[in-house]
């Protein structure tokens, strides 16, 4: 037990101040530190994402992009720092003295329901049809009436171009189709933020386009998105802001065109020269 575990976030911001920074932001991460044993994976990451903004995080493998994304919906606990989604702490509750304690399982679940997460490996539920994969969140978590949840699920699957695959099982679908079901599944919870963790990295090249098309449509529709990807074309076209991470820290951020054309940091230029 590190002492920071008990006092995490005590120094971050000014607790109780009336206009806390990031209160209006969709996602506000402040000085997030995450360790796996002795390895410090996140070394003080701060990032604010406005409502409707599309932020694309790039960086080499092991730079902490995925871990940071997983911290945002508390799939990973943070060692210090704090993350707020829609102005509310995720994963923790603040005690009267300003210290953070891990929230109850139910509170954590309620926060997570507002955040859509799309995994690199899809993680569809293989024992359910595509339709039930999409419907089960609203059905089980929001306790929506069964027929309504199925109707909404069918509409979402149609929106991602899978109207003819409602009764298909995940194992019967291609990777691109599975990932589109997974996006529909996340959208079914009507999240205010969508997190994409290398959503196209496990796909055959010819299937990348169909998934990116769905993501592009979402971005155009005003969804708040944080996207970890190696698809630089997508980043250039869709991102409002590009964030470069390396070695557990944000190296540089800015408008994608500007960064692609003339990144300020040598590390960013070096990385981009390899991937562009």
């Amino acid at each position, binding site marked *: 037990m590190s002492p920071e575990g008990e006092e995490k976030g005590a120094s971050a911001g000014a607790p109780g101040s009336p206009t806390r920074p990031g209160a209006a932001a969709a996602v506000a991460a402040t000085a997030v530190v995450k360790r796996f044993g002795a390895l410090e994976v996140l070394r003080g990451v701060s990032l604010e994402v406005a409502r409707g903004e599309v932020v694309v995080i790039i960086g080499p493998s092991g730079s902490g992009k995925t871990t940071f994304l997983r911290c945002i919906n508390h799939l990973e606990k943070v060692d210090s720092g704090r993350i707020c989604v829609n102005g509310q702490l995720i994963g923790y509750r603040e005690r009267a003295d300003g210290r953070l304690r891990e929230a109850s399982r139910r509170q954590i*679940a309620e926060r*997570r329901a507002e*955040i*859509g997460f799309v*995994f690199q490996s899809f993680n569809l*539920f293989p024992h359910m049809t595509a339709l039930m994969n999409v419907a089960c969140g609203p059905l089980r978590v929001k306790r929506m009436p069964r027929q309504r949840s199925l109707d909404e699920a069918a509409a979402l699957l149609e929106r991602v171009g899978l109207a003819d695959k409602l009764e*298909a*099982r995940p194992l019967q679908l291609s990777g691109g189709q599975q990932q589109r079901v997974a996006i529909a599944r*996340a959208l079914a919870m009507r999240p205010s933020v969508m997190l994409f963790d290398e959503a196209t990295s496990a796909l055959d090249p010819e299937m990348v386009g169909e998934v990116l098309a769905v993501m592009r449509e979402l971005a155009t529709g005003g969804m708040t998105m944080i996207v970890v990807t190696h698809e630089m074309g997508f980043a250039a076209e869709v991102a409002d802001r590009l964030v470069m991470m390396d070695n557990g820290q944000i190296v540089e951020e800015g408008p994608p065109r500007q960064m692609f054309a003339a990144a300020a940091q040598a590390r960013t230029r070096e990385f981009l020269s390899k991937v562009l």
Partner: protein
Amino acid sequence: MVATPLLSVAGSNPAGLNFDWAFFWHALVRPNSSFLLGFATTIYISIIAMALAIVVGLLLALGRRSRLWPVRVFVSLYIWVVRGTPLLVQLVIVYDGFSAMRLFSFSDVTVLGIDIQGVVQAGIVTLALNEAAYMAEIIRAGIASVGVGQSEAGLSLGMTPGQVMRRIVLPQAVRLIVPPLGNDFNAMMKSTSLLATIGVSELFLNAEEINSLTFRTFEIYSVAALYYLFLTTVWTLVQSTIEARLQSQLGIPRPPTFRQRLLGTGWRPAGGRVRDSA
């Protein structure tokens, strides 16, 4: 000359092998009512004990994953002791030992108008508690085999850990639990014959009684063996039906048929992937 002793043994039965075909056939196809009752007892004890074992085994498996260390320690100790001692010894301890120690003795009760002897209760409870230890390990392995990504997907939808276990993990674990569970149920149906030692009037005890009255030893035990074989064969059929249903839930085509299962021919073990054609 050389084989004199053997000849003298054979000579005690000048008519050749001592096998009463008519007796065997009659015992097989027209068993008396008490033998049939014993057969029924074997069946219902097996089913009830297995059902209880699944419930207790699930609780033990979940207990082993508990956040509370005393629960984990208790479950580990339980599984260690129960799996490490013979079922026969457990039976006599629970029925005779507890009673002799004046700790607890099973008395006859009537449930829903059906009389259940104390000794039958002891048999069911012991079989169930014994099997639960094995089931706990089977269920634990089944749960562990469901990828962590499945849990994370459920959690990220806003499910609580309990919902994830119930809706996502266990339904998938079942597919991996059923084959070893079926194996254990097969073993348990045969283990019920041990209940004869504490006096449960099940299939084997009835065979023993017929033997002591008729001395048609080979015949009646062969009949008993065939009845057990019948039970396990029916179970094989039931199990393959259950497995086929669980496979089809994943959209995996063409599970092995009963004949293929029984004879072990004509099918290859299913891999994780679906093939378009076979």
